[in-house]
């Protein structure tokens, strides 16, 4: 534990920042993580020493940039335990990765009266593209409901599955509740009816080891920016046999093999999915983020997350005006909560005055927040640089919320911080 938390904060320049006169406490990691100096340096080193377009120059710089870009692809493949780097497509982010599948494979494979299944836990990024596709194709969209314990109703999932099911879309960790669905079991079940499975790994990929081979998922999508990497880079993993059948995504330079005036042929996967100049600098810097995470190791990260979550639960559970939304026994890195009589936005504003960054609102998961029966929630989400003392500061900010809003609270009797 000594490796993470306070010690590692020094490697993240942003923590020298003060907000409203206080040192920053950053508890909005499910939105995006902060960046270590190694990643920031990789970005500026690229621009200072190597900047060139890739796949289209024989000069030294272009060759170096191309090598580093393709090395990152190999690095990502190894990180995910993919069979080959050619199973890795770079996109703009998790959202684009999912939309790419919707626009190519799913647009071709899904027909009228077919079924797409999504879970009630999904972020809008893994829900809205499927709503649209289902509408266009006149296919059916089924939702796996939640249990009272805030986990997925697996029984219901099994009854939803049928030969008509072509695609199942599942998050690997809810960005609101932290719920981790039993992916391996669910993927196996989906495959028995011949359905493909897309995993939205945005929330888990920076916190626990991702092994696409062991999962046996068909597609897996995530963003670099939630795992210490730069914004503007996403990954789509897809099984080789599927990629080869998929039509291209966008058309233009780089993705073509040969172009005649009226007809063109396309490069093989993954390059046929990467039209135009990609986000070279950020992709290259993303490799440094993966190196950073792997040097620490996911065992240590998960242990750290678990410690922070259980500490935050125990501290926040002391306040009887606070309701926590988290499955019992789940070890994730997010904790949604509400304060009786105070809107989550007002909670977040009071926290911000104390330089504590949390998220409030619907978290791009409006149907899920509605299921919880609240207007919105406040959410703390943790990462490797957070400490128990960050949570103590959050608890003090929470007491400030009670103080500011005590007028509007129906009962008094705030319990002081233990």
């Amino acid at each position: 534990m000594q490796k993470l938390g306070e010690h590692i904060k020094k490697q993240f320049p942003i923590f020298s920042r003060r907000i409203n006169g206080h040192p920053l406490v950053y508890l909005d990691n499910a939105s995006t993580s902060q960046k270590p100096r190694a990643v920031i340096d990789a970005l500026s080193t690229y621009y200072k020493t190597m900047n060139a377009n890739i796949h289209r120059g024989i000069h030294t710089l272009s060759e170096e940039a191309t090598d580093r870009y393709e090395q990152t692809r190999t690095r990502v493949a190894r990180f995910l335990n993919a069979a080959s780097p050619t199973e890795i497509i770079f996109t703009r982010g998790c959202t684009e990765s999912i939309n790419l599948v919707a626009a190519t494979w799913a647009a071709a494979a899904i027909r009228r009266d077919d079924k797409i299944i999504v879970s009630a836990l999904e972020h809008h990024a893994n829900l809205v593209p499927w709503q649209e596709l289902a509408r266009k194709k006149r296919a059916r969209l089924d939702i796996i409901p939640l249990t009272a314990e805030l986990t997925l109703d697996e029984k219901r999932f099994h009854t939803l599955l049928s030969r008509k099911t072509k695609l199942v879309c599942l998050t690997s960790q809810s960005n609101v509740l932290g719920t981790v669905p039993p992916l391996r079991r669910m993927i196996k079940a989906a495959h028995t009816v011949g359905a493909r499975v897309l995993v939205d790994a945005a929330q888990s990929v920076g916190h626990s080891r991702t092994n696409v081979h062991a999962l046996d998922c068909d597609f897996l999508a995530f963003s670099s920016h939630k795992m210490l990497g730069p914004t503007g880079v996403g990954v789509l993993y897809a099984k080789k046999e599927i990629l080869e059948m998929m039509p291209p995504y966008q058309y233009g330079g780089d993705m073509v093999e040969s172009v005649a005036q009226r007809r063109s042929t396309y490069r093989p996967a993954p390059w046929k999915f990467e039209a135009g100049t990609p986000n070279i600098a950020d992709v290259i810097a993303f490799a440094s983020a993966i190196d950073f995470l792997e040097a620490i190791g996911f065992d240590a990260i998960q242990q750290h997350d678990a410690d922070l979550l259980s500490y935050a639960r125990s501290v926040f559970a002391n306040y009887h005006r606070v309701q926590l939304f988290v499955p019992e026994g789940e070890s994730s890195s997010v904790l949604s909560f509400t304060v009786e009589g105070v809107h989550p936005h007002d909670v977040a504003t009071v926290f911000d005055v104390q330089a504590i960054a949390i998220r409030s609102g619907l978290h791009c998961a409006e149907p899920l927040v509605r299921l919880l029966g609240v207007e919105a929630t406040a959410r703390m989400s943790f990462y490797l640089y957070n400490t128990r003392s960050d949570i103590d500061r959050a608890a003090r900010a929470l007491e400030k919320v009670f103080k500011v809003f005590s007028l509007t609270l129906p009962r008094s009797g705030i319990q002081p911080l233990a």
Partner: protein
Amino acid sequence: MDLYSETILDHYRYPRHRGSLLRPSARVVQHNPLCGDVIKLDIAVRDSKVVDTRFLGAGCAISQAATSLLLDSIQGKNIRSLERLTRQNVIDLLGISVSKAREQCAQLGLTALQKAITMLKQKRKR
């Protein structure tokens, strides 16, 4: 904690003009997609004057207090004068400066009111 002034907390705790009208001249339901705040605003107009106005809403202290203050300020006013209301007027009513992120909360009531006025104008044209 300047943002949550006595005035704002008072209007949040005891919103003025809470409720709905049986026969409003115009009714608008306005959402803030960012946070799910919602306001239902009813307005009754006679001889171009605001004779009554009510709102029901769920949301943060800023959106609810701003709406309460705004409706308080327009009683008996000629609706033509309401067309000139600006976002700055709402900020002045609140008596605080709000951050960019909270500006949308503060302006929810004004947005609803502006829509209601547009509806009233269209009605009159018909």
